[in-house]
């Protein structure tokens, strides 16, 4: 019978060759422009602008979640620890800026759009579908804030250490990718609800 040695202590990587920036500062102006645009869209109740922010934000959010969970996740699982480390060190800082921005765009513009169109009213024929979409988004928000973001930021800080713990990074990355997959699957429920609402 083959004996498989289980790792009893965490193995750690050699020092990374490059400095990892937790918040990519070059991306902040783009985030700032997107958020200011969202505020203007809400303040002016501009129909096209709210529609644009909601559709673009929602599509980006959905595609990223599905891609991370069902395409990149399985690929990363087959990479060597060093390759996974290199890839994650470039991906995770970008996710830290991108995801909160697209989520804020989608939800902020979506709620205001629904209010602007009178869809929040209880007399709206698809009010039950709208409330169901709030519940789906609520579950996704809890998963994202409670599991996904903590794993994201903990990975980044671990990678900055002189001797990062590769086992811990692998565990946190699995949480990140699984939760992205779960929220991606829930996005399909959102797509079903939203298309039902718009098709009448």
């Amino acid at each position, binding site marked *: 019978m083959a004996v498989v040695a289980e790792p009893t*202590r*965490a*193995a*750690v*990587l*050699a020092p990374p060759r490059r400095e990892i920036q937790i*918040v990519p500062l070059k991306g902040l102006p783009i985030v700032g422009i997107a*958020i200011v645009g969202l*505020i203007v869209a*809400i*303040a002016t109740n501009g129909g096209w602008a709210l529609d644009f922010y909601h559709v673009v934000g929602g599509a980006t959010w959905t595609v990223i979640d599905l891609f991370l969970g069902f395409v990149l996740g399985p690929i990363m699982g087959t990479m060597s*620890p*060093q390759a996974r480390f290199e890839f994650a060190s470039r991906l995770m800082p970008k996710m830290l800026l991108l995801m*909160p921005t697209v989520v*804020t765009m989608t939800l*902020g513009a979506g*709620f*205001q759009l629904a*209010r602007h169109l009178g869809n*929040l*009213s*209880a007399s709206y024929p698809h009010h039950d579908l709208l*409330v169901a979409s*709030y*519940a789906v988004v*609520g*579950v996704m*928000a*809890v998963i994202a*804030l*409670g*599991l996904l*973001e*903590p*794993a994201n*930021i*903990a990975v980044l*800080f*671990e990678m900055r250490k002189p*001797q990062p*713990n*590769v086992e*811990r990074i692998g565990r946190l990355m699995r949480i990140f990718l699984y939760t992205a997959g779960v929220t991606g699957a829930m996005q399909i429920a959102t797509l079903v609800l939203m298309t039902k609402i718009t098709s009448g």
Partner: protein
Amino acid sequence: MEAHESMPERPMPPIQPIAIAIFVLIVTGGVFTAAHLPRHVPQGPTIGLLSAAVVLLAVNSVLLSRIPNFAWRSFRLVAGWVLAAYVVIAGMLEYVFVYDDTRGTQLVILTLMLLVFAVNVPMLLGFSVARFQEPDA
């Protein structure tokens, strides 16, 4: 790749599960409120959910403050920046509430929910990083 040995992870109080429970309470209150708007929102359930969230936040604060040999410097660094970001986000949401004519007790309840949310996120993210850092000397 060079392999080294590292110290085993220390057991920590259940701060993350409690923080997630706080999110569940606040999000449930938010969904309940949004489902009723722009009509009158029954205040009993939202006050109950908010009160439970405040109690859990207090429990989490106590649990956090009693962790021996914790990396407080890392905690403050992360929680501080996240708090700054979430004050902006919570401020935007508060602006939307006021802009959409939310008034009176409903506005107070929503504001307190936002406050709990804006404190819970930095606390959780600060803890998530600091738990894996070397304790302060």
